[in-house]
């Protein structure tokens, strides 16, 4: 009976139980350093003032759901797109490569000119819905989120998963690095957004309210990382104080799900796209 190198005393059952006990150990190790909550440390920070933001532009013209958008580097134009099965990110330094996430549960790095697959990333247990590249100063990593409720951080060169986080209770629709690169935020169908610190290797904040029961589809940070803008399936946008964990503003205007959201490169505004066929610029 050919088994791929079964070592002595090793069975499928024993490997599975070792995996389970390692998961427990991982939780224990993380818990040991959980000496305080982020919002407690943030008590000494000045509270934010009132925010006045409203729709400054409404861009009509799409004939169908807006799913994905981004700002151009010239800071004035907005690019939006409609239906696609994949999430695509351009690496800003070597624009010959594309990083993609797929419904087949993997991510892939491609060379555009040759069409060659340079690296593939396996580890998600279900469709990968989103990804974000680390800010260039922090090296060659990216974070992905999937239908398996996991957020995973990857080394682009080795293809290896460096860290994995499984605290959400449903699909993760959006992930975005904190501007310093030391943390990332996620938005999920479990109606919460969460902040994960990469050096503490754990979730450090949850942004939620009992009154928010619809999934968060898209998240982005303001330039300093103090604010987290999140678009939801209940047509609203919530603005969160990242440090204190509280909501500072709720924005109405869209007439259907908010599907995508991005802060402009100079941080003066953000744009939201919706199933109501419009994009709104908020400032």
């Amino acid at each position: 009976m050919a088994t791929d190198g079964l070592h002595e005393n090793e069975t499928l059952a024993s490997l599975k139980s070792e995996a389970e006990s390692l998961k427990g150990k991982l939780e224990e190790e993380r818990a040991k350093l959980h000496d305080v909550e982020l919002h407690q440390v943030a008590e000494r920070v000045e509270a934010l003032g009132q925010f006045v933001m409203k729709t400054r532009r409404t861009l009509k013209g799409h004939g169908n759901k807006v799913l994905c958008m981004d700002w151009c580097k010239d800071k004035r134009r907005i690019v939006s797109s409609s239906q696609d099965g994949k999430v695509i990110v351009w690496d800003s330094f070597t624009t010959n490569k594309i990083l993609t996430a797929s419904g087949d549960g993997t991510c892939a790095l491609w060379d555009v000119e040759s069409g060659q697959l340079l690296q593939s990333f396996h580890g998600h247990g279900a469709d990968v819905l989103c990804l974000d590249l680390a800010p260039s100063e922090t090296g060659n990593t990216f974070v992905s989120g999937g239908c398996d409720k996991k957020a995973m951080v990857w080394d682009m060169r080795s293809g290896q998963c460096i860290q994995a986080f499984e605290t959400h209770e449903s699909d993760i629709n959006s992930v975005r690095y904190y501007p310093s690169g030391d943390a990332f935020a996620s938005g999920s169908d479990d109606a919460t957004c969460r902040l994960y610190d990469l050096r503490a290797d754990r979730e450090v904040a949850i942004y939620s309210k009992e009154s928010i029961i619809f999934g968060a589809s898209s998240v982005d940070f303001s330039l300093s990382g103090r604010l987290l803008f999140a678009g939801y399936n209940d047509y609203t946008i919530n603005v969160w104080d990242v440090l204190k964990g509280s909501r500072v503003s709720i924005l109405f205007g869209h007439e259907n799900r908010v599907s995508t959201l991005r802060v402009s490169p100079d941080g003066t505004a953000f744009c939201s796209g919706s199933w109501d066929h419009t994009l709104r610029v908020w400032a």
Partner: protein
Amino acid sequence: MSGKVTTGSDIGQARRAVEQLRMEAGIDRVKVSKAAADLLQFCTEQAKSDPFLVGIPAATNPFKEKKPCAIL
């Protein structure tokens, strides 16, 4: 007698999962108090250059309406 046939790939997969978890469990971590303090520091340092926190005068903000009147 039924029993699940243990294929080579099941074992391989399970072994890889254990290796990955062992690696993740062993990484260096810092305390939340330290990590949080660093997040705070970054926010505070960057706050002055965050237009959403500081605000920019309506005159230079391309998204705000220009007032129709001018002072002569």
